[in-house]
């Protein structure tokens, strides 16, 4: 009797339910903190809803009017600014990350103290972006240490006013992003390289391949999926760039609004608590980011299938 019952129960045991139970916390959190705000953002973007002084205006339903006025504003200019600021930071970032990753992972180099260097290059990322930007603001101000140093060395006669020039400001923002993120990227790429079968590198070396050839013919093709992943996550992060330029230019995106990023533009609408316009801008950003994510997804899975097929 007892044995029979046990047997019956064992038959019905389905371990998959535990999978679902353990997933509940994630989905509940996701629902409350991500999904509901996302949907309400779509909803809010259809309303005229802001504060004039202490008087609340709206919410009045206006359909797609917010989207129309966003596209009539300088949206493309701010998108351009954001992409330019990202590229300025990303090119040196990926260059140095690749070099460092290859060196750190190289079995013949056997770099001493690589753990030490790995920690050091990651450190800038630990500092808060806002403090980092404040530091640069002070360093590169008209009467700041950087100008004093250059004048003492006799390289310049009068201070360079970095933050009043378009490329000075953009350059500093890019440089800061590069400093903050190249350590992170190095570690990701290094993990990818270490994952490659070292026999491939050894075989290439025995066949007389030079380091550059090993890099272009073996390292790059094998780490391509991770490389694309790094590229796209960085681009998505870049599109949402905010804290560094915001603090460096005091929220103004000076000069001539050329360092105004999309999120800073969004933030400007919060001066008047303009949830309609800010919501519309968020939705536009969402669509752009989603499109980019789909691109990376299809590139990644597409290349994987090809490999499987040709084998």
């Amino acid at each position, binding site marked *: 009797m007892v044995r029979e019952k046990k047997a019956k129960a064992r038959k019905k045991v389905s371990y998959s339910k535990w999978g679902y139970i353990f997933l509940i916390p994630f989905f509940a959190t*996701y629902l409350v*903190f*991500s*999904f509901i*705000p*996302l949907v*309400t*953002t779509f909803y*809010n973007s259809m309303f005229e809803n*802001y504060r*004039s*002084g*202490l*008087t609340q*205006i709206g919410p009045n339903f206006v359909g797609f009017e917010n989207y129309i006025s966003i596209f009539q*504003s*300088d949206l493309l200019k701010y998108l351009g600014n954001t992409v330019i600021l990202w590229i300025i930071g990303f090119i040196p970032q990926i260059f140095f990350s690749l070099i460092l990753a290859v060196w750190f992972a190289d079995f013949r180099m056997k770099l001493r103290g690589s753990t030490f260097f790995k920690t050091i290059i990651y450190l800038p990322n630990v500092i808060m972006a806002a403090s980092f930007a404040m530091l640069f603001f*002070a360093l590169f*101000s*008209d*009467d700041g240490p950087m100008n004093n140093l250059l004048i003492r060395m006799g390289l310049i006669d009068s201070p360079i*006013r970095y933050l*009043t*020039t*378009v490329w000075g400001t953009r350059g500093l923002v890019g440089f800061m992003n590069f400093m903050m993120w190249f350590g992170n990227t190095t570690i990701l790429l290094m993990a990818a390289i270490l994952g490659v079968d070292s026999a491939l590198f050894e075989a290439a070396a025995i066949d007389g391949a030079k380091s550059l050839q090993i890099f272009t013919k073996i390292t790059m093709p094998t780490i391509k999926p991770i490389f694309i992943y790094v590229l796209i996550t960085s681009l*998505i992060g870049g599109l*949402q760039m905010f804290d560094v330029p*915001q603090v460096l230019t*005091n*929220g*103004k995106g*000076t*000069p*001539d*609004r050329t360092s105004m990023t999309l*999120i800073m533009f*969004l*933030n*400007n*609408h*919060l*001066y*008047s*608590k*303009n*949830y309609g*316009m*800010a*919501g519309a801008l*968020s*939705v536009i*950003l*969402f669509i752009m*980011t*989603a499109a*980019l*994510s*789909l691109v990376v*997804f299809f590139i990644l*899975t597409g290349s994987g299938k090809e490999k499987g097929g040709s084998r």
Partner: protein
Amino acid sequence: MKKKVVSGLLCAVMAASLVAGCSSKSAPSESGSTAADTTTAKETEAKTETQKEAGGEGGKVINIYVWNDEFKARYEDYYASKLPAGYKVNFVTTPSENNAYQNALDEALLNQNDAKPDDKVDMFLVEADYILKYVNSDYTMDLKDVGVTEQDMSKQYDYTKVIAKDSKGAQKGISWQGCPGLYIYRRSIAKAVLGTDDPAEVQKAINDWDSFDKTAAKMKDKGYYMLSGFDDSYRTFSNNVAAPWVNGKKIAIDPNLEKWVDQTKKYTDSGYNQKTTLWAAEWASGQGPEGKVFGYFMPAWGVDFVLAKNSLAKAEADGGKQEVGNGVYGDWAATIGPESYNWGGTWLCAANGTDNADIVADIMKTICCDDATMKKIVEEKNDFVNNKTVMEALAKGDYKSAFLGGQNPLQMYCDAAEKIDMSKISPYDQGLNESFQNAMHDYFNGTVDKDTALKNFYTSAQEKYPELETQ
């Protein structure tokens, strides 16, 4: 294929959560996200202060919203000892840049009804640039209901009362200071360039804008700067406009502001100024011992609160004192300058819903109406107080400002105070002044032409005030 669909969905979900992180910023519930962005050390300090003191007795905490330490210092020196036992005053400080102060204040006022007695706003400070926004709202109390009468305020300068009345004529704010501005210059530079440091003689050299320009050229020849930067003469023009910023719902740039743009562009290109911006580190160091700037347009609070501190060689934080011989303290003098103007001013408002109205009224009466206290503020802090009796008496008396090399500038302040006309202010002044100055900085720096700078101003103005029209 099915796997691909599932992982595609997961990928989309991931992307969605990335953006949701930023879009939730625009969800209506959070408290002043712009304020959070510009959180400074000062603000966090204030927050920890709040936490420290909030645990006290029920309803016996007086919350005062401020944007800097000016009023806090007045309070500490002239009222703190009178505070009844058991009460605590808590200053909530948020810097005004990027509207952070008003955002924080608005959020607190809108929550006033639901707040615990200890968290209710009891009193808050406002500036002339945005006072109308608050006095015309229901969030401020008629001072009569608080316990400050017209009789109490009878000695105050008229403009300080008129500006703080709502559209129905109820008195909603009170100020302890008057802010007539003068031109405060360096005596040593005046001697070196003009051959005299006598205020009457210097006044002849800057009596109108034409002679001001000529003196500026002379300063440049001797290696000095007439003004520090872009914003220094702004208030002399913006306070003498013919019409308010906003006409109906339309933004109008007054011809006098155009004059400021043209003058500043000319000064920048000719090297008459140091290309600084207001409150920047370079602007402040120009007032110190190494400074090469001839003078600054400043009201009385600027002398006390700004110039005196920046003029020291050994800062007060390092143990220095405000005394002649420390840096260029005492090397200054005041004169009227080309035009009378008013800059700033701080008004105290009682918040509707305060649970400590009697103490709020007492603070107001002591600091803004009491003759003895106000006289002490002038003598000890060089501020210009909002009390005709005290000021006229001191102007005729033997009051001497050590900072101004023994000069008694009070008669000049008194005369200027009588001339001030604040009828051209609008509720949008704060945001529009800030946007206008910022947009023009690019033009002065030569980054853009004037039309582009104007276009940037309109863009920024409409972001701040969607209800306004441009052109």
